[in-house]
């Protein structure tokens, strides 16, 4: 996890500091193995339940987390995730940041469009995950790594 945390510093700090929202209770988890993804899902659910997200919103968030975590491992060569509790003065939310030191995503536009795939998957890529969350930010640098931040607010 240390390598990933250090590399995270390279990334756009705005991404990691949530554009001015308060972040609390940061939990950082490694993403290197299958089991790590399962653990991540469990923690995300705890957080989601903790801020009172509806069942559908919980499911959407955890599914997005699962997708992004898998991307981190499969395409990013492993890395980590930060789970934050967010408060912007009006509402509470759960923020997730996925970081890796991998090759980065060469064509971001293509990746965000549905149907993009490199690993023989269903071609869902990031577009699908983006639809499941309220906010989606990505900072990727070819040869250096990728950081993806998502937020789900309590309605």
């Amino acid at each position, binding site marked *: 996890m240390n390598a990933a945390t250090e590399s995270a510093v390279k990334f756009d700090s705005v991404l990691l500091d949530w554009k001015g929202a308060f972040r609390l209770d940061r939990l950082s988890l490694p993403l290197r193995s*299958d089991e790590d*993804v399962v653990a991540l899902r469990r923690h995300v659910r705890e957080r989601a339940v903790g801020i009172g997200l509806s069942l559908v919103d919980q499911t959407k968030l955890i*599914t997005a987390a699962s997708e992004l975590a*898998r991307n981190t491992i499969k395409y990013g060569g492993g890395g980590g995730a930060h789970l934050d509790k967010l408060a912007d003065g009006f509402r509470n939310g759960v923020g997730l940041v996925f970081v890796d030191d991998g090759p980065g995503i060469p064509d971001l536009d293509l990746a965000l469009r549905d149907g993009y795939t490199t690993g023989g998957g269903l071609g869902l890529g990031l577009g699908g995950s983006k639809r499941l969350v309220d906010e989606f930010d990505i900072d990727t640098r070819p040869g250096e790594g990728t950081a993806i931040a998502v937020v789900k607010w309590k309605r």
Partner: protein
Amino acid sequence: MERIPILRMGDLLLVTIQVDMHDRLAMTLQDDLTERIVRDSAKGVLIDISALDLVDSFIGRMISNTAAMARVLDAQTVVVGMQPAVAITLVELGLTLHGVKTALNVEKGMALLGKNLN
């Protein structure tokens, strides 16, 4: 190593997924099912996901692949018990589970399989 149990009922195979599967376990299930279809000359596969509160693209792919392989082996697959929140999420995600029949519960799933087999 943990495996998800597969029950045999006549020429039907029944799988109930109750754990949060990690990817390897899902792949193992896919392999096990394919092997059992051949070994037991199964004509139908019923996958009960009523206990699953999460189905992501990997699991979705596993289900689609299993159904596709079953079809090649002349067996039908029915997925039952999908929870509403999961269905809504899959629709949003854009996952269609193409080629997979679905039913609300095991009873209806078996009826569906029975109808198509006769």
